[in-house]
Structure formats: structure tokens, C-alpha cells
């Protein structure tokens, strides 16, 4: 039984899944989430230092039971090598935002002001729009976006969270190990067979 960490402060839970790097893996994982009715807020797939393994980072919300089922059901997939929840305090979470805002000569300066406070980059400027790039914790992105309530957002996209644990390697739940059975499977009942 995996222990699900208590994160009272944060509703957002971040799950890291190490999977075989094969075609169809994302379909297997997302199909599982869909049919089991797990709530997924974001999902990213990325390469790792081992070419045979990809990392899927999922952010989700829900009660402890739902989260435990998500962990255990995903662990059951053949393609899953390891799955664990990231501790909010002991992990680094980052997300990339691209934001296109309607901008003209009158408000360019204010927008630049916001960007500089949040250390967002302006990566495109046209007579009627501006595009910002911001990398940071999801909460920072949320806060940055809050500043644009009174502006006209034309388009935005967020990559979803990617995350890694602080410090060296950590111990996590392992799949139950399967060994060659030593029990001579008993027969039972008249004519019973294996």
C-alpha cells in the first residue's frame, strides 16, 4: 500500500510516472484515467536520461482514496515502471506559459511593468499585441495571470507541470515482486486439478 502524502495546504497533487518509452504508452495511461474517472488537470510527457524511459507528470486533485486508486491502477499497467506522488515541499515544479495580450501604445508600458516584476520575457511585439513567456511554479503562473484580468487576453497556453525531486535519489513504491512459486500447488476435492 503506497502512503499518500498529506498536503493540506495544496489541493493540487503532482504525480510522477516513469514508463517504458514506446509508442502507445500515453494512450494506455490516458485511457486508464478516462475509464476510471480520475480527474486530471494537466499531463506532460518528457524524455529522461535513460532513452528506454519516459516521464509522465500528472497534476490532479481529489480525495485520498481517488488518488490512491490512481496510483495503484496506473502501477498495474505493464508499461509503468514506477509511480509516486511528489512532496510539495521537497520537489521542484515548473511550468511554461505563453500569453498573448491585446496591447497598443496606451498600455504597453503598464504591461511591461507587470512583466518585469514577474520576470516574464516579452518575446513578440506587434502594433496590436504582445506575447509574454514566463517559467515558474504553477502558483506563480496563476498569480501572473491574475494581473491580466483587466486586459484583453487573446490567446494563452500552459505546458502543464513538469517536476523533479530535490536532493539525491528517493525510495518509492515498488510493484510487488513476482517470484517462481515454490508451493507445489495442492489438488483438492475428488478429481480436482491444478
Amino acid at each position, binding site marked *: *500500500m503506497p502512503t499518500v502524502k498529506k498536503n493540506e495546504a495544496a489541493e493540487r497533487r503532482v504525480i510522477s510516472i516513469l514508463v517504458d518509452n514506446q509508442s*502507445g504508452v500515453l*494512450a*494506455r495511461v490516458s*485511457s*486508464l484515467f478516462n*475509464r476510471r474517472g480520475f480527474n486530471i488537470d494537466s499531463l506532460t510527457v518528457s524524455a529522461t536520461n535513460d532513452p528506454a524511459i519516459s516521464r509522465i507528470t500528472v497534476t490532479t486533485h481529489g480525495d485520498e*482514496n481517488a488518488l*490512491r*486508486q490512481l496510483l*495503484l*491502477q496506473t*502501477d*498495474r*499497467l*505493464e*508499461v509503468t515502471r514506477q509511480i509516486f506522488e511528489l512532496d510539495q515541499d521537497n520537489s521542484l515544479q515548473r511550468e511554461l506559459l505563453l500569453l498573448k495580450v491585446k496591447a497598443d501604445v496606451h498600455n504597453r508600458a503598464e504591461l511591461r511593468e507587470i512583466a518585469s516584476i514577474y520576470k516574464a520575457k516579452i518575446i513578440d511585439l506587434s502594433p496590436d499585441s504582445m506575447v509574454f513567456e514566463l517559467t515558474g511554479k504553477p502558483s506563480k503562473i496563476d498569480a501572473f495571470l491574475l494581473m491580466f484580468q483587466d486586459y484583453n487576453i487573446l490567446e494563452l497556453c500552459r505546458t502543464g507541470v513538469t517536476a523533479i525531486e530535490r536532493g539525491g535519489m528517493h525510495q518509492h513504491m515498488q510493484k*510487488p*515482486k*513476482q*517470484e*517462481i*512459486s*515454490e*508451493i507445489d*500447488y*495442492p489438488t*483438492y*476435492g*475428488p*478429481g*480436482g*486439478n*491444478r
Partner: protein
Amino acid sequence: MMLTGSQIFVEVLAEQGVDTIFGYPGGAVLNLYDELYKNSDRIRHILTAHEQGAAHAADGYARATGRTGVVLATSGPGATNLVTGIATAFMDSVPMVAFTGNVATSLLGKDSFQEAYIEGVTMPITKHNYTVRRVEDLADTMRAAFRIAQSGRKGPVLVDIPKDVTANSCEFTPKAPEPVRTVTHYDEESVKQAAEMINAAKKPLVVFGGGVRGAAGCQPLRDLLAKAEIPATYTLMAAGVLAYGEPMNLGLLGMHGCYTANKAVDEADLLIAIGTRFSDRVALKPETFAHNAKRIQIDIDPSEMGKNVPVDLALVGDAAYILQAILPHIQPARHPDWIARIREWQSHDYKPVDSDTVLKPHQMIDEICRQVGPDAVYVTDVGQHQMWAAQYLHHVKSRGFITSGGLGTMGFGYGAAIGAQIGLGPDARVIMLTGDGSFHMNLNEGCTAVSYGLPIITVIFNNQVLGMVRQWQTAFYGKRYSNTDPGRRTDFAKVAEGFGAKGYHCETPAEFKAAFADALKQKGPSWIDCRIGKDEKVLPMIPGGGDINDIMME
């Protein structure tokens, strides 16, 4: 040595100890079938009438023998026809490997003739599945498929093989088959804790399910029940693990389980669940299920722990190993008050009424048991007859009752009976119990039983209606019998004769007795059409979402 994909296919099957497969040929698997033709002395291929029948046959073969069932079908419709059979095996954790042909790799994804993306279709109903795109990957993929199907919590695996992969050649190196693996480890502390809970219990109860059948934990289970005097009840998937008439055997649990078993769950102070997943047909109302009890769950699959009903102690591992580990910590005990209470409930259990003139399901089943003895293997379809079979058959052996539990697949029975008879050999006695509704779905396999001379006796509980649905319409839908009274006029005895089988028709107990006795003498298949009343019900019944307080006894 250099071999073609088709030759590798046969070599790996042989290497894995497969001597029998079920299937149906077609364009995409012509190369494989050509190789099977040349190797018919090594691998016996059983041709069914429909791929669904082949899938159920592979499933029935696996359930009856404990070996992995193998089915082969062509691309497109051949593959999609397997789907119900694969899903049935998945829900009941039956080891099975399904092979499908597909169009050549150059035609994949182009809506080619008889192309279906079967890997995608079967993703949610297999333990794992593969498309083999290179002949070099074929042997190891097949080996992995067998390993996955038969290790841990068992289940079906599908391998899709495009036609060019079966034609191309590569170097092949034989390998010894991998032994079956299981979860032999367990947590010592939890084992001791479980033993303490059992030793402290005043009103303990064991609920076991299909996982015990798979783990072959029958003997340690019996030892536990005897040592600590613990009564036990079982789910549909585990009928026969504990023999009929054993004193600690309370009978079937759940929606159509007996009053005593359901009552015992309600009053127990300790529930030990072994290899069972608290499905909604057992824990109909999870909030009140075993609400007076501490709950221990033993299962090989960690994802089953507390999935449907919360548990106080979870032990992950093979039930056979865990029970053997718990046993030495168990103190011999007696629970006279608890047992007396259970015996008292048993005197109030539902008792069906006998008749000398009309056929009654429970009397028919008694008669069957009397005539065939304990060695028979019983296979059912799905519906009222299935529940009567579960309730009234004198189950005496593990793997002696083959039924679609989780998926509840009408039309499962005849294919499964064919698989069981093929797997157990011509001397085994396979009895198929079905209803007229279920049987109409897949009775086409009658031709298969005739072709292979299989002495399967089919008893049709013919009430001329779709009885189980009708029973619900009677109880919960104001007797509005929407589409459950089809007005069919099928003469099953004549249909049997049309297939080349022996047919009987009977309406009284005496006629049934004689017909069944005659059927036992037949070399080939026989069908006994038995007319029963359309208002026969399966009782007792706890409605969906209800508990022991809602039990219907009439």
C-alpha cells in the same frame, strides 16, 4: 536458424507448452494457418463456428485446466469478434493469449480491407497487448505475452501480427519457457497482526473469491477454517473451492446468495476477505457491508485493496503463501455461540418448493448431480439458470464450475464447454447449463461439438422468456415486460438434430430423468430442452444497492 514469422509462431507456441489452440482462419492469418497445417501433429487447432466461440473456448479451456488458453483469429472482423471473449476473461482474471492477424505493415492505418486497430480496441480489456511490427520482435513478444498472462493476477494478453511479419524471416533461437511467477513475498508484521485479529475475534467469517481458485490456496484455507472454527462463504467465482456439505461452508454470498451467508457478513466482528474484490454483486451496499466487522483483505493485486470497501488490514500477495504464513500463528479456537447463531439462521434459509408434475430448476439440478456424480465439470451461461446452478449444484471441486462472473456474458457457455471438454479430454463429463435466452446467442457452436464428437450434455432451462430481466421487471417495473417475452417457437430438439446432435424435449421430472440418463450414454453432444414456468424466480434476492434488511425471500 533462419525461420519465417509463421514458423516462429509455431515454434514459440510449442516452446511454451501449448498443444491446443482455438481459432478461425482468414486472409491475414493464411501464413500462420499454412504452418499449423504442416505442424498439426504438434499443435491441435480447434475450429469453431465463430471467433467469439473460439475466445470463450480458450477461456473455458484455461478455467478447466489451469493452463493458459490460446485463441487465433484473423484481422478486422475476426479480431473484433474476439472482444467479448477477451473482456470476459479479463473480468474473471483468466490466463489467455489471443493472437490476431492484421494487414501488412505497409497497409496499417490506411483503412485497408479487414483492417481494425485491435490494439486500441482491446487496450482496456487486456492486461497488456502488442502489435508486432518486425519479425525480429515476434518470438520475444509472444514469450512476454505468455509470461504476463499467467503471472501474478492472471488475465488476457493480445498479440497482433501483421501479415508481412508472418512471411518475413529472421534468426530464431529457442528458449526454455519461463516458469509461472507469483507474489511469494508478504509483510511479516501484517501476517502477525492478521493472526492476532483472528485469534481475538468472537464472530469471525471468511469470504473467499476467485483468487483462491487461482492461488490454489484451497488446502491452507481449509486448514484455517478448521483450526479456528471459522465459517466461510464464497463468491460466484469460487464455487467448489470448498466442498458442498462441509460444515464450515455457508454457501454463496451476494445478491442471490443465501440468507445465512449474507446475515453472517452483517453480524461478523471480523471479516477475512481472500482473493475477492467486493464487487457490487457481493457488497451491494458498500457503506453497510460487514459494518460490524474489522476487515482484513488478502489479494495479489494491490489495486484491489480498499477499492470498493475500506479495509483495516491489507495483505498483498499470493493467498496460498499468506495463508500458510498465518496458520502457525493461529490458536486453535471454537466459537460455539457464533456457530449456533449461524445454524439458527440456516433453519430460516430459503427453501424452494418441490413438484412431482412440473419441472423445478432445483430438482433438475439435484437430478443431474445424482446421475453424474461429483466428477463433472459444470459450465453455465448467464441469467437465472446460472444463479440456480450456483445455488443448487453440489460443488465439490475447484475448477468444477465455469461461469462468466464479472462480465456476465450471455452466450459464454457453449464455447466455454467446448474448451473445457477439449482441455479435460473425452473421458471428462462436461455439463452445460443454459437458458433459452443465452443459448440463442451462441448455439451455433453446436456444429463444433458435433465436428469434434464432444459428449457435452446441454440442459436448457427453457422458460420461453428472458427470465432474469423479467424477474426484475416483475419486482421493480410494475410487470411491464418490455422485450423479455420474445414469442420464439424454437424447437431445440430439432435444432440439435439439424446440427447432427441428439435432442430431447421434456416437461415433467420423469421425462427429464429419462432424457438425462439417455444423454449420458451418447458419444456426441446432446441438448435437453426442459420447459419450466416463466414465473420461476431466483431467490433469495437482495436488490442492487440494498443490504440484508432488503432481502427478498418470495
